[in-house]
């Protein structure tokens, strides 16, 4: 802390006078400080983390609101908070091994994680080696820490599950073969049948028309275009159907398994934390290094992924419905219908001798 800021602080507290130039200078100094720089860098990881502690940290960072500071006192209090947050926003301080993510936390080992014990932060490695605490104290601290990690995971998942259940806005029953798609499939089957019948027709005249033996270019080309569109329509329908199948399957699976069965989620969380507890206690008792990766203890990322997916579907309207494939499928369906029906009509007219 600079001495000159003490002078302005005392003046402000006693007389109520705030020197604007001193305040601006102080804010610039704070923003140029190592602590602020470190905090801003750390916050990127904090934002990316799904840990509840990380969420709290991010809220504290957001509350700093440096641009709204209007007194020397506020600036110095904010600076104290920045100094604190810069320390506790380091990755190892908020990482929850039960929610570790492969893309972010791959380099962390269990020994690097910091816990808050006896009023200060200490890594698990230093805690294990410390002679200041008994084995019993260490064991109790580990149990307490795992319980808080478990609570973090549980509260996060349960609150989302409960929120979705309480306010189901977009949780429709999605069917892979709904009415529209069923009609489209029927039409496709009809047209495919007509194409096959046309190509391999037992009727000589139809066969000759299709294979252009009358040199009736117009009908031939019309039919060829229709067949092409029908073929493309088939392709898009199959692609769309496959995508929808996967999306709807995931959605229905997530909805039934996860949303409808919180107890299963709870028991799986308990299994994950028991595994972690067993590892830490064994290392502690046998004085083994804590070299396991944090990813080894992460709770089933699929379940977390399902819950996040359902959240976006329900609250953000990101429904697995429309996409470009859907649009292309409809375009070619329309073209197939137009050209197909037209060529069919012309073939019939030719056959009855009108053409």
């Amino acid at each position, binding site marked *: 802390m600079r001495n000159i800021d003490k002078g302005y602080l005392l003046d402000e507290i006693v*007389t109520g006078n705030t020197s604007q130039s001193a305040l601006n200078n102080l804010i610039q100094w704070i923003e140029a400080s190592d602590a602020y720089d470190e905090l801003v860098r750390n916050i990127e990881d904090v934002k990316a983390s799904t840990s509840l502690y990380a969420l709290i940290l991010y809220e504290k960072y957001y509350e700093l609101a440096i641009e709204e500071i209007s007194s020397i006192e506020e600036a110095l209090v904010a600076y104290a908070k920045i100094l*604190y947050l810069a320390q506790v926003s380091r990755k190892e301080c908020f990482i929850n091994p039960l929610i570790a993510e492969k893309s972010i936390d791959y380099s962390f080992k269990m020994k690097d994680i910091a816990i808050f014990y006896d009023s200060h932060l200490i890594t698990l490695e230093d805690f294990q080696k410390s002679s200041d605490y008994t084995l019993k104290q260490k064991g109790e601290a580990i149990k307490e820490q795992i319980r808080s990690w478990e609570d973090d995971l549980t509260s996060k998942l349960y609150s989302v599950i409960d929120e979705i259940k309480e306010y189901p806005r977009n949780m429709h029953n999605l069917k892979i073969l709904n009415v529209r798609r069923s009609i489209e499939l029927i039409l496709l089957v009809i047209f495919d049948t007509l194409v096959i019948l046309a190509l391999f027709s037992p009727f000589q005249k139809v066969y000759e028309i299709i294979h252009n033996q009358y040199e009736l270019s117009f009908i031939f080309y019309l039919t060829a275009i229709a067949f092409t569109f029908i073929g493309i329509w088939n392709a898009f329908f199959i692609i769309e159907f496959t995508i929808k199948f996967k999306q709807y399957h995931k959605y229905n699976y997530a909805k039934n398994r996860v949303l409808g069965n919180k107890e299963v989620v709870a028991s799986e969380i308990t299994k994950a934390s028991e595994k972690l507890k067993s590892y830490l206690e064994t290392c502690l008792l046998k004085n083994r290094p804590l070299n396991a990766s944090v990813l080894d203890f992460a709770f089933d990322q699929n379940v977390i992924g399902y819950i996040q997916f359902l959240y976006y579907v329900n609250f953000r309207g990101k429904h697995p419905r429309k996409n470009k494939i859907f649009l292309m499928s409809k375009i070619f369906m329309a073209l197939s219908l137009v050209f197909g029906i037209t060529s069919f009509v012309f073939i019939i007219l030719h056959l009855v001798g009108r053409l």
Partner: protein
Amino acid sequence: MSQYVIELEGKLFSSWKEFGENIYLHEDAAEKLLTSPKFLRILKDSEPEMFKKLVKLNHESREFQEFMFLAQYIFNPFMNIRHHGYSFNNLKEIGDKILEFGPEIDVYLKDFLKYKLLTKYMEMMGWDLQKPIIYKKIKELEHLFSINENKSYFLLGFVLSQCDIIRYWKRDYVNIEEFFISMREPFNIVSYSSLIDKSQYVLSWLTVKGQLDQVKKYEDIVNLVEKMEKSYDKR
């Protein structure tokens, strides 16, 4: 003491009283004398009571300053307050002297609290009973000295001088607003700011002026920031 003459830093004294009155001017030389076997032998022969008191004091005192201050009153019990070149006729003069130097601190004036010389003098003179309020206040400041030396030093100055005017760099300020307006000046702000915590003079004055809550708020904020800075540096 008619057959002996005491020499102290070139001066000759023919009475113990006169010798006692001058000890404060030459403490180092006096200390050598008071602990020399020859002097003690002479004292024992001529003034056995004084000798006993001096020996007892020598055993009880742990600090040089304390020993010298109290020793002089063995030879002259009714002197005014004298210490390391300073002579004060009353408590107010001590207070005025402390404030006169502000925001600088005189280490010898600090001895009055550090070695509890003032309360010991008051007890010797019976002032602890005659002036109980001020005696109690000085006792409190002696206790505060162990927590915050400089603050208790300047508070002593204000208590003894019974004045709430701050004398800062040879200029007197009666009210708070006037003081801070002056300290905001570019030629004052840097020096004044650097001395706030170090000297505690301004904080003591504000306390005397009834701004205790404001002083506490200032101290809380500064302590918070400095604690976080230390913690951050140690990470």
